[in-house]
């Protein structure tokens, strides 16, 4: 008695209908993609790329002042806020007493970064921003340590190659 209570109905027990239904979906996609490729959701990466929102959080950018010097004052607030402990700054005395302090070294370990954007939030002088660059794969571990120069150059990165499929 109990067993019969949990028995599947015949329509499900023979699977055939479900299989046909599934194949129908596949067939529908096949023909729509064949006849109207514009509606295909896949992106032909890397020839074609998706357009990310400017608010996307990718590789950090260290911004510069109008005179080309680094904007960062080495206050270490980003390093303090960073939950992944991946920002390593060495501060030094700047020759100009008006500037006073600047980062001699500024390294971010991108293997540890979780792209949370806390560093950007913490910065009092808008010196660090989350950029939109996301292609950060590499062959060697030490290549994931982005130095001050790398991060300052990251500001030049634009999405010029990005096209909408």
């Amino acid at each position, binding site marked *: 008695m109990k067993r019969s209570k949990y028995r599947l109905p015949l329509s499900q027990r023979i699977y055939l209908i479900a299989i046909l239904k599934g194949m129908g979906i596949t067939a529908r996609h096949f023909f729509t993609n064949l006849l109207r490729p514009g509606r295909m959701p896949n992106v032909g990466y890397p020839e074609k790329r998706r357009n990310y929102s400017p608010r996307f959080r990718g590789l950090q950018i260290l911004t510069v002042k109008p005179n080309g010097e680094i904007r960062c004052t*080495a206050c270490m607030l980003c390093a303090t806020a960073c939950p992944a402990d991946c920002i390593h700054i060495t501060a*030094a005395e700047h020759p100009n007493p008006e500037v006073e302090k600047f980062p001699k070294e500024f390294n971010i370990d991108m293997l540890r970064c979780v792209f949370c954007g806390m560093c950007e939030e913490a910065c009092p002088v808008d010196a660090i921003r989350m950029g939109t660059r996301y292609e950060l794969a590499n062959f060697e571990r030490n290549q994931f340590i982005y130095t001050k120069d790398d991060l300052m150059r990251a500001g030049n990165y634009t999405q010029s190659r990005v096209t909408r499929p």
Partner: protein
Amino acid sequence: MSTDVAVKKVSVTIDDKKVEVTPDKTVFQAAVEAGIFVPHYCYHPDLSIAGVCRMCLVEVDNAPKLQISCNTPVRDGMVVRTSSDKARQAQKGSLELHLINHPVDCPICDKAGECKLQDFYREFGLYKSRVELEDKVHKPKAKDIGTIVLDAERCILCTRCTRFTHEVTHTDELVIVNRGNRSELKTYDDGPLRNDYTGNLADICPVGALTARDFRFQQRVWFLEKKNSVCTMCARGCNTTVSVNPKTKKLYRVEPRRNPEVNKSWICDTGRWRYHYVYGESRLRTPEKISDGRVLESTWHQAFGEMKRALEDPSGIVIGLSTQLTNEEILELVLSFKESGVKHFVRIVDEQVIEERSPWDGVLKHRDHTPNAEGFARMFSMMNTKFLDCAGLAALVGEGNLRHAWFFGLEGEDVSWASRFVEALPEGVSLTLHATSRLPIWERAQWLLPAASAFEKSGTMVNALGRLQRLQAAIPRVSLARDGHAVAFGVQRGADRDAAPEARHVDLFEKLIAAPLLGREQVWKKLDPMGVALKERS
């Protein structure tokens, strides 16, 4: 009669809390005793009272106006309110006044994190300035005045620093010139500071106007952890805190810790900045064997092996102990070598100044640059053992059967006084030195063993005032350096097989307590951080 009156206490009510204080106290000091914090900038427990910052305003009984608590004497039955609306409002007003011309450049200011202006600014929530940026008076920034960097713009004119140079060092280099909002702190001749206690200025400045060149931009203070210890650069034994970043495990600064009996709130610049030998070029990192002028990196295993073999004929050995070793290390080394039959112990100390028991400059600095000469003497009398001085060593050499000299615990790069002991040894005697640094005066040694520095070991020391104080390890031992306990342990075994037990100093400290030396019950963990005054040495 008059003393009776002075002892009689008055009772004051502060924020509904009753305290009994002596009548020579001020309201501020009474509040401190009651555990109530009153915001303040210019008051400092070890300087005279200036009453210039007006931050400590409080409401007193039915006085028509608010009073500055730091300069108002207590009166019996006084009722004080430190955080009533009226008092808070006044304190907030004072704070705003201090902030009028302040640049608020906390991101590049080294004081951020331990700055009183920043703390109160957050507490009182004065986030919106009523002064336009352009209207602020600008003053020189990052001015070099020797060991200290002066930022006149950040100064709030509390006069703590000028009082310090006037009252403590009597050098009067710092002055405040001009008036009103153009008042500016500077050295009177725009030259550098010329005293031996300049580092304290960076400590007492409640804001970031005076920062220490040595520590500037090295770390943000909130990354650091502090450990209580004592300075080992001279016989004074000033109480200190040692700041270490727990991530890098590196030592970044040494600061004074207040102890009215020893150093008040100060330490000298030597004690503050000489720690760099810990990471210096000359620091010994591995045991080194020197033969025919060639230096060979060796191992502790080999060194211990050779020493154990030499110990088979203990009559040819003399042990030299630096007065920079802790009491526990001295005990350990002497007891273990006595057990092996060694008879001769030498005290390595600057003998010309050893009898001096007070600071030569009238403030803190002693001529005896070793921290534990007093403890050394006490340890030896406790163990009923005799030690030789330099002349005694020379006499022993004259007897002619000396073959090995082992000198332990020589610390730092400034130990020129120890060279007399090295020179007293003739060619034929092989010298083994346990020291922190490789120095030209150690040239004739056959073995150099890396010693743990005072920042890497724990133990107790007795300063020139006869005060037993505790040294605490703040950083891990650099490379292969070892303290006296580990060396005594290794030599006994003749091999580097079993490591010396951790916290060996605690076991030996227990021995100290058992001996009549301390005169009262002490437990290592509970030893007063301010130290314990010992009975006079007989």
